């Protein structure tokens, strides 16, 4: 049985040109996304973790073509999204949606929440006002809000409720893939659980796939089917969830996992990473991680390790394997 891949990214790159001087001339590129390849299957949740500034959000936005990719392919149901013209892209957008991190900024403060959800339907060309109203009501119920909230404004809602509205808007056109860009990290813990459960329920019912961006491994462990780790614009390890948490290979993954809060901290050996993420404008030579790696060997600063499949479904980019 072949698994239907809904999204397939090949060698995706997004560079930002950095210029300086009175007459701007390029001084380098920020390699926010530097050759990322991954796949997401139908109804699958791929957790994407990494420190802030490693390119997680940019990757998400590039997949949606909110940022134009520098190079690479983004195949959505076999169709290359990068090559689509504006009109075709607009038609596709309903199927490829995003949920944002900050619920305060993701809703227009001057528009009713019903209006915000309905805008999705208007843009996607549903002409009948009656049908739109009905669907907005259904969407609001789906995310656990009363349809009577239609004419309320975002400032009248709590963070969790706003996030539900954001989810409803993303679901408006029955998407097949939703990029969830840290959808719960701005919420407090009890609300986080509610939103995560809501997202899982919706996934099970509607059969959609998530690219779940997060920096919180315990959330990723809860929600994902597979996990990918990003460091400085590259994916350094990707594996099926149980394998990932049982047998992490990349030293960076080890360090991240050791940082999960535990009820018995004494049982665990903490791996502390030194310093910050290096600047993506001027990444270290060889393996980007060697400056902070606790298992560095002689070859690391010299050669960039290949991203290889070391066990079935387990990919890693490290010289140790």
């Amino acid at each position: 049985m072949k698994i239907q891949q809904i999204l397939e990214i090949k060698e995706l790159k997004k560079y930002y040109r950095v210029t300086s001087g009175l007459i701007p001339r390029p001084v380098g590129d920020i390699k926010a996304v530097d050759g990322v390849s991954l796949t997401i299957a139908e109804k699958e949740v791929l957790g994407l973790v990494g420190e802030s500034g490693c390119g997680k959000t940019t990757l998400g936005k590039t997949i949606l073509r909110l940022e134009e990719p520098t190079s690479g392919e983004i195949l959505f149901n076999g169709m290359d999204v990068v090559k689509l013209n504006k009109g075709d892209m607009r038609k596709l957008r309903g199927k490829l949606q995003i949920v944002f991190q900050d619920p305060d900024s993701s809703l227009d403060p001057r528009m009713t929440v019903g209006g915000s959800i309905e805008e999705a339907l208007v843009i996607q060309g549903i002409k009948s006002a009656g049908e739109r109203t009905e669907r907005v009501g259904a969407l609001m119920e789906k995310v656990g809000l009363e349809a009577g909230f239609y004419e309320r404004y975002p400032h009248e809602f709590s963070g969790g409720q706003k996030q539900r509205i954001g989810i409803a808007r993303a679901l408006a056109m029955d998407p097949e893939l939703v990029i969830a860009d840290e959808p719960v990290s701005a919420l407090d813990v009890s609300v986080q659980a509610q939103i995560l459960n809501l997202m899982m329920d919706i996934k099970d019912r509607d059969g959609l796939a998530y690219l779940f961006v997060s920096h919180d491994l315990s959330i990723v462990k809860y929600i994902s089917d597979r996990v990918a780790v990003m460091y400085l614009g590259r994916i350094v390890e990707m594996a099926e969830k149980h394998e990932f948490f049982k047998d992490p290979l990349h030293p960076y993954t080890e360090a991240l996992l050791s940082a999960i809060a535990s009820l018995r901290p004494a049982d665990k050996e903490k791996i502390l990473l030194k310093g910050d993420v290096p600047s993506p404008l001027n990444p270290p030579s060889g393996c980007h991680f060697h400056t902070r790696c606790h298992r560095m060997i002689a070859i690391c600063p010299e050669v960039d390790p290949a991203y290889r499949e070391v066990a079935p479904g387990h990919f890693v980019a490290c010289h140790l394997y």
Partner: protein
Amino acid sequence: MSEEKISRRGMIKKPVYINRRLVRYYWDRLKKNKLSLAGLGFIVFLALLGIFGPFLAADPQHVDFDIKNLPPLGFSTQESIYDIKTNTFATTVNPGRPDHPLGTDSKGRDMLSMLISGSRISLLVGLLATGIALFLGTFLGVLSAYLGGWADNLLMRFTDVMMTFPFFLLLVLIVFIFGPSLTIIVIVIGLTGWTGAARLIRSEALSLRTRDFITASKALGASDNRIIFNHLIPNVASLIIVMATLSIPGVIMAEAALSFIGMGDPMSTSWGTILNTGQHSLDTAWWVAVEPGIMLFLTVLSFNFFGDGLRDAFDPKASV
């Protein structure tokens, strides 16, 4: 009125520039600022005066030299005439008259009528010129922020160039060339006054442009037009209102100054024109200059207080 009972219109054909509950919220905040309310009260009074006053008052241009330089009610002037036969001064006292409660000027024109006429002119010029200026400012500011890149650069440098012109000198020059008329004055003030608004709105729109709800609309495939008119402009609307309120006094003063130096519209009686008349007779009839002065002072003060209050009411971080 129960908020739940508001019917679901169920569609957003038009952008929601004004909505009842937000307006209510801002009004509640504004109400706490008493100075601002007083300002609003005076503006409303002035508006009513400007709209209905001229229908009720006498003709402000009516000249009657028999009653020239009448003082306001409650004041009186003394006139001493040297009598050559008796070698004494005969002194007559002119008290103010109830049919001219604010007195008359050196041509016997009724001050009250002139002031009422002036309030209409001042408000009209203030509103129209500010309207033109803010329309241009909003358009260029939002456009500049939204387009970004070289278009933004070009528009902002153009704004800088416009800002370097000494505005009043330009006004005098153009009035000198095209002749003094209210239309010209309104258009010139409008066409030169948009620069500050454009800059402010651009910076506001720049920060809005990167907010997630704009990105969300883009992710849904919204057109540039939709984003500008349904999201950007409604979100800078409060800024526009505040700027309008705060820029009206400047425009009123500019018109008054122009009339004062004799370059105003000769066919209309504005406060500046009255001031100009009063200037020549300050020693004999002080009220001719003082009365329009007070009106200008109160008007400018009211708009400023009201604008300040509005700004605080619209600013979610300000405690009122």
